[in-house]
């Protein structure tokens, strides 16, 4: 049986693929894959932008004043753009490696290796 929907050539194989693809095991694996991809991309992104934590720390360690607003203004734009970038990264990896794919037992390792 093909492991990717786009490699299927005939109706019988497509029907078998769909029945496996919609199974409970595969659904659970896809949900796990989404969580892994999100974790992987967002953690990776946060490692690159660690200096932003300094601003976050400043917000947490400073008594509430008007300075909070300035710190948040400095923090948010960068954080939002980075967040957008990494969510789209996770989405692309999902499209390439998870959607319309039958996930085998070693799919977690594959997700870290391939994407």
């Amino acid at each position: 049986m093909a492991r990717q929907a786009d490699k299927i050539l005939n109706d019988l194989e497509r029907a078998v693929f769909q029945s496996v693809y919609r199974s409970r095991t595969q659904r659970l694996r896809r949900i796990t894959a989404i969580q892994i991809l999100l974790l992987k991309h967002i953690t990776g992104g946060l490692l690159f932008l660690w200096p932003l934590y300094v601003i976050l720390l400043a917000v947490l360690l400073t008594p509430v004043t008007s300075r909070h607003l300035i710190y948040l203004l400095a923090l948010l734009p960068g954080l939002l753009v980075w967040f957008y970038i990494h969510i789209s990264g996770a989405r692309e990896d999902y499209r390439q490696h998870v959607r319309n794919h039958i996930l085998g037992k070693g799919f977690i390792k594959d997700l870290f290796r391939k994407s």
Partner: protein
Amino acid sequence: MFKVRQDEPDYAFIPEVEVPDVNRYGKKIQLVDQHDDLAGKSLNINGDPSISDSPNRYKQHGFYFNADNCISCHACESACSEKNDLPPHLAFRSVGYVEGGTYPNYARLNISMACNHCDDPVCLKGCPTRAYTKFAEYGAVLQDPDICFGCGYCTWVCPYNAPQLDTTKGHVQKCNMCVDRLEVGLKPACASACLAGALDFGVIETTPENRDQLKTQIPGFPDPEISHPNIRFQQTKSLPREMTRPDNIPVRYERDEQGQNGFNTKVRGNGGKPEWNLGKLRSREDPLVIFTLITQTVVGAFLILYLGPKFGLGELTVGAHPVLYPSLLLALLGIQTFALALSTMHLGKPHRFYRAFNNLRYSPVSREIAGIAVFYNLLGVYTLLSALPVLFGWQPSSLINGLLSIVGWCAVIAGPVALYFMYRIYRIKARPFWNHWQVLTAFYGNMLALGGMIVLLVYGAVLVSQTHSITHLGSSLSALIATGLLIEMIGLFFHARDLEHQGGEAAASHYRQRTTYGKTYIARNIGLALTLAATLLLAVSGLDGIAGYTGWVLAGMLMTAVAVVGRSLFYVLVIPTTMPGAFFWHNPGFQEHARETGLAEMAQVGVVTDKH
């Protein structure tokens, strides 16, 4: 593997011929040593020894183009598109032309061009992700779209417009020399499909059948010295004294009556009127406009904050403003993060940004990103140590101060070095408008002027609100701001002068600067002069209080507007030394028209919409 058809004609096969040892650039044609294990051996792919058993497998191959024969039928383009399954907006090979004379003595010179698999591939060196490889097999320069993250730098540096940026997929693709066909002895699809005997293929420096010439230049072809391309031309028919391009690039080719070069590139058009065209200042490089300006501002502001107190600017010490100093550092960190994030948005695949570090050895893009990353991390550590001392209260203060000093000095060095790497990106031979030292003066000038202005405005606001004087700070920082503006003005003056003298695409860019964007260009220059005058006037007049601060705010606003317009002009004015296009294809004028009129919505027109 590619399967050879039963009825494949003889001309579709690569002939076996005598090959010289070196090419005209002095480089060995045999790319693997005679005694190497690879030499003369088949790879035995899929157990078939007949695949890749060519004795010339490890020799540099190239294209041969007979311009006399090309009838612009586009069969080569079609064959290439079919072979590589390309969408309508991409073409690894395209046919453009130059034309001249008047009826009935009209002449047209067609040029079919793809990747020339150069001896010195500038795309390979420029690529930050190392998506390019020059193979010993046939000397092919191949690119892996899965590694590419779509920065488009290879499309900037290549003089032949070979790498094609697919904005819909977010990566670059290019001609792969049909290596799978070569492995079974066939010529690439384009050469096999040529109807008129114009396009041929073989080991380089071997004259094909029915040809006499192996020229490296014809009108419209960029300087071969840039990358030593593996293409040879034949062109014997007489041409008019002057040839022009059908696209909207203001360049013409004039016969060199005295010299040996054949044709010289000159500016086409004169008497064009200056226009504003402010709407056309927007481009794909908009994120880079913001990224470069913010980075230069942050580096400049940090240098002033760190070095200012050491040069007698008491207002900038932490002690003088214990709240403002760390707040400004945190704000700088925030906007630098935003700028870095924004710069990745210009990539086809922003989430693959980390691949930018892959080619530190050769790529100026990798070096720039690495340089800015070093500065950014040092700025982060410095801010952490100076803005949040409460976190390190358990450490001896001498240790923290020592660490602050080391990190501060490292950041002071790293910032300008990163800007130098940023400048190196634009020293591209195929883009003469950028290939000038003025880019460095602009970057360092902005660093001083914008960095100085932001520190002055932030500190000025606090000083004025506390009814303190801003004259000392203003006059001190105005020296830096004025120096920055002056450096930029000097650079711009020499840039404009050298563009004129240089001729070719450089002069064409300057022509467009004076016409299409003429009023914008003049307004920018006047704005620059006004900012300098205002800076000096405010410093000398000693204007203080709210009136003085308002003056600085206005000067700062003018300076920012001038910087944004100037940097936008920098990106839109560049004219590459690229191949001539056709009336529709590879004609930026037609692409613009197609997008404006909605033609681009029809995929078969071959122009992608701005939506991507």
